[in-house]
């Protein structure tokens, strides 16, 4: 198991050092600094073995988090734990920066004591932790006996992510379907790979211990219902259903129920959480098509023309459109003409960045650039990195639709109809690249 956990700043100075096991000595802290943080080479692996001690590390902005161990630990678990550790810290004090870590070091030690025991991760749900690890440490003593046992039963209980007795005057639910659409396209317009990775993010403000059920146009569910019903509804919805390649759920979702009935039922945590993640690869709506044309004119000039076409309903608007066209390192000057938006050559980034604020569906726009190059003797060819694109669209490129989100709370007197629900779809570009 995890033998020690260290947090360093960008210089390699130790901010937090907590040793859980006897086999990790003080010198382990230095070994990681010398061999990884101060190493000349770029990091070649997130797992490093130094003198029979394994270090698993992640980086958050300038901060390094490293777990050290001498055993054959479950490496995936250690990384998941480090991510979780970052989440917990962020939930307590915001951004993980050197200043924030230093400002909260007592709290961090307290957290590390609680969520990692002898190197074994323990309950690390912020909701539960915040009930008894607070920044005002004094509060802890004033819990009544009932409160204490409520805390412990929540920390160890089956529903560790929610406490009892939550009350809201207005029961409200916000549901965001956030998708990132990824594309790799050949210069000829052939889709080399495309997939959508989506998340269903919720914000719930519900009283009591509500039982929720979430439904979407999952092909498997719709087909199953289709067999039972067999009305025109099937033809209509069957067409709109989507094939989900795989999905994962927040730990509040009853996995065995999903496995047998494919229904998503859960008691939600209070506040923000990510209910599910999913991935689709079939019938993806690619919101934009990028058509590049690169011509090398002699050894010192390059002509680039890029056309973008929007491919969705003309009533919808895409926002924050940005096209990034890489330029060779030897670029000396760039001349740009674009029909829409603003374009700039950014020498420090070796790219032309073309920004368009808004663009409706079924439109097209183009940019042309003339790039002057310095003559060089360098035999090495320019690698021609792909043209990448960013955008945001108000629909789900996978075609996912929320069918229902039902809330039942048998003990309190509010019903599904009383809950105010908000649903929003946002599609963003993930890695959206076209080779040129």
């Amino acid at each position, binding site marked *: 198991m995890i033998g020690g956990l260290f947090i360093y700043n960008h210089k390699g100075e*130790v901010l*937090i*050092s907590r040793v*859980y096991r*006897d086999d990790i000595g003080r010198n382990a802290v230095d070994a990681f600094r010398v061999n990884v943080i101060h190493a000349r080479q*770029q990091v070649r692996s*997130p*797992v490093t*073995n130094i003198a029979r001690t*394994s270090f698993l590390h992640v980086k958050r902005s300038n901060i390094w988090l490293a777990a050290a*161990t001498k055993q*054959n*630990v*479950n*490496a*995936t*678990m250690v*990384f998941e*734990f480090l991510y979780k550790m970052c989440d917990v810290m962020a939930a307590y004090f915001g951004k993980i920066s050197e200043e924030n870590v*230093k400002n909260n*070091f*007592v*709290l961090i030690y*307290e957290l590390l004591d609680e969520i990692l*025991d*002898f190197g*074994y*991760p*323990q309950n690390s*749900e912020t909701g539960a932790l915040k009930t008894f690890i607070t920044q005002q*440490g*004094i509060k*802890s*003593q004033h819990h009544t006996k009932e409160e*204490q046992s409520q*805390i*412990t039963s929540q920390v*160890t*209980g089956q529903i*560790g992510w929610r406490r009892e007795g939550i009350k809201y005057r207005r029961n409200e639910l916000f549901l965001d379907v956030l998708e990132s659409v990824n594309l790799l396209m050949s210069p000829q317009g052939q889709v080399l*790979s495309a997939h959508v*990775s989506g998340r269903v993010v919720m914000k719930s403000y519900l009283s009591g211990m509500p039982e929720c059920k979430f439904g979407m146009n999952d092909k498997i569910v719709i087909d199953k219902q289709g067999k039972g019903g067999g009305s025109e509804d099937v033809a209509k919805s069957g067409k709109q259903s989507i094939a989900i*390649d*795989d*999905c*994962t*759920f927040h*730990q509040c979702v*009853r*996995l065995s129920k*999903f*496995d047998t009935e494919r229904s998503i039922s859960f008691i939600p945590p209070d506040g923000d959480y990510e209910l*599910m*993640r999913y991935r689709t690869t079939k019938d993806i709506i690619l919101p934009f098509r990028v058509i590049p044309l690169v011509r090398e004119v002699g050894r010192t000039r390059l002509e680039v023309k890029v056309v973008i076409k929007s491919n969705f309903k003309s009533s919808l608007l895409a926002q924050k459109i940005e096209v990034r066209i890489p330029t060779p390192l030897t670029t000396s000057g760039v001349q740009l003409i674009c029909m829409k938006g603003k374009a700039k050559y950014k020498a420090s980034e070796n790219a032309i960045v073309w920004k368009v604020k808004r663009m409706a569906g079924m439109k097209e726009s183009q940019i042309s650039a003339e790039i002057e190059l310095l003559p060089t003797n360098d*035999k090495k*060819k320019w*690698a021609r*990195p792909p043209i990448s694109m960013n955008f945001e669209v108000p629909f789900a490129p996978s075609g996912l639709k929320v069918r229902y989100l039902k809330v039942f709370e048998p003990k309190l007197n509010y019903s599904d109809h009383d809950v105010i629900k908000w649903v929003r779809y946002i599609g963003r570009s993930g*890695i959206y*690249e076209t080779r040129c």
Partner: protein
Amino acid sequence: MTDSKYFTTNKKGEIFELKAELNNEKKEKRKEAVKKVIAAMTVGKDVSSLFPDVVNCMQTDNLELKKLVYLYLMNYAKSQPDMAIMAVNSFVKDCEDPNPLIRALAVRTMGCIRVDKITEYLCEPLRKCLKDEDPYVRKTAAVCVAKLHDINAQMVEDQGFLDSLRDLIADSNPMVVANAVAALSEISESHPNSNLLDLNPQNINKLLTALNECTEWGQIFILDCLSNYNPKDEREAQSICERVTPRLSHANSAVVLSAVKVLMKFLELLPKDSDYYNTLLKKLSPPLVTLLSGEPEVQYVALRNINLIVQKRPEILKQEIKVFFVKYNDPIYVKLEKLDIMIRLASQANIAQVLAELKEYATEVDVDFVRKAVRAIGRCAIKVEQSAERCVSTLLDLIQTKVNYVVQEAIVVIRDIFRKYPNKYESIIATLCENLDSLDEPDARAAMIWIVGEYAERIDNADELLESFLEGFHDESTQVQLTLLTAIVKLFLKKPSETQELVQQVLSLATQDSDNPDLRDRGYIYWRLLSTDPVTAKEVVLSEKPLISEETDLIEPTLLDELICHIGSLASVYHKPPSAFVEGSHGVHRKHLPVQHSRSFEWAASLLLVSGPAAAMDQPHVIPSQGDLLGDLLNLDLGPPVNVPQISSMQMGAVDLLGGGLDSLVSLNTHILLLMKAKGLEISGTFSRRQGHMYMDMTFTNKALQHMTDFAVQFNKNSFGMIPTSPLPVHTPLMPSQTIEVSLPINTIGPVMKMDPLNNLQVAVKNNIDVFYFSVLIPLNIFFVEDGKMERQVFLATWKDIPNENELQYQIKECHLNADTVSGKLQGNNIFTIAKRNVEGQDMLYQSLKLTNGIWILAELRIQPGNPNYTLSLKCRAPEVSQYVYQTYDSVLKT
């Protein structure tokens, strides 16, 4: 107010000041001071001298301060053991606190204070906490047992904490269960044979129930523990799999990978043709792909594991090659791993896409990655024959880029392509030769030299090219020197007239001016070959070379199986067994994939000549039993033993040496069976019983070209609890075509599992090459013990006592012996005749025998004069053995 100011105090006399502050009257001041101490400790300053002052602050009702003091204690108690005792009282008191959070905090911290004296005081509070009413305290106490075990294992055992821990597996709280499982798993790693966890179907059921309810981390502990369980049959394996598969949808990738581990292990137990097996395979692929959309570090771990899974079960991901295409901004470690998997998944169906990708990669920036991409193109050519031409042309394009390291890497792989497809692509040699000057790495130079030498007859200026390398001969690496020597000798053999001088030159360089013994030796060998017999030299040097294999750098199968048992862990990241990087007792215990009891030997059946009882009895290689030496002499018509001289002569020798006659050596009708023949290893052998001891006599023959070492043998659980009592006595390496005989002593004190057929024994033999599995049917008579003669009275009583439905009758056909000979023969096999009667002209023999496990078998053998068919009636409390006893009778009487 923030805490960062504690990091900034840096004056001299700091310790002194802190000391004063720690003893301040005001609570707040003291707390501030302790914070400063902790900050100083964090950045590595030695603040151990403040120990007594900090401990003084421990008596407080401020939880935050208490935690800080505890933190300090954990760090320094070891260096100040005597003072640490001062803290004990406070701990013991806290363990009685009404607040469960404080009780847990105390027990958690006490376990972290690694001072022997303190641990003694810990026992009582810990015992209470293990039975605490609050689950939070119990789950903390469970981990504390593991802590204590790490400090003083003996004490934990003596105090009975292991039993308390085992009790917690049945706890009502899932998190307590999970922590107990984690603690027990860790403790049992240091006692690999102790069966501490006691995984039986009831406990497994408890774990599976807790799995649905506990935290994500708890699920990981439980799944990792489950993966060590060996289900008793395929039904159990399937039912566990069914309950584990929902975990594949968990958001935590460690839960997913641990579930994958359980499923990959238990797949071994499921019949390949079943629907469930195929459904399960299909279910495994999507979650593995999903892991690749996680954070880069998890992607890396996942890819290292997928690399193993793809080698073990390529069918799972063969359709998914696209997800392994490299993204421009993947971290380099992810890129390199993806590339590896792409090559493994490349096939005729997807080769066009793969090649297009690889060509892209070869123009990237990272040198390692580009090289690997080029190498990958070469490997595709070798793996998928149809693509070879396209690969070669891609490589030529890359050579045209003139990027130095790309060219060199390309030339190295082109050499391999030449080896795989001789006489196909030689037209490109001219292009390769153009780049001769730019090659500065030994690998590339050697590859180019090899190509020139191999195709010297087609290259007009081969002699000039090779001569150019000769100039700096002594500055070259050994690899290049050796290749150059061989290449020039080849050239000479192909064009002797023009190159005599050149070959003289290289031979003298290699033999006279070099310090490298390998080079000198090779030089002298060529020299002598060329000077004595040029024709032979040609045959040797220009002989046809074996083709290179398709799959390279596959992980060796036994290691692969072991690594599959470690999916998700560091071992799977390093691709090394835990023993390679873990010190001490942890993880030294090797894990194995489970073996399917009833069917797993199907694949091995082809290796086996023995496939059923009949076959065993009908083996042609039968030698007369020792007990029947006299009979043998009389029956000269019995053919001499074929092909089995060693064992029989050995046993004869034993008779001679002992000289004591037949009583002292009860040996048996021995079937020499060819047990196993694979990968050049041939094992034949038999079982025998000598002087009350059992042996497995085997003959090992090495028919491979390499020597074999590291032999070991293991038996699967079997009906009679047979286990080897000593390691396989093969101590020296077995050289090619060498044969050795070994006699492996066996006894019957091992674990018992009923096999079908009853006398089936599954054996695994391991050597440096592989693990070999075979099964053999044991002749039952080796279990017949020497004191198997029953008293007459007892016999009569027992015969009556055993119910009649247990009586089974058999016919022994075509036997022409008289009653006395029969008795003699059987007695040699520890089947004792108690009485003989003559009833109406028939001889009735009443006999008894006893098995090693104490089962008595009573027999009545009826022999009618003139009738070659005897009737055998067997009575036994365990009638299932009767059939095998009958078989023994049959074979004993017919030899």
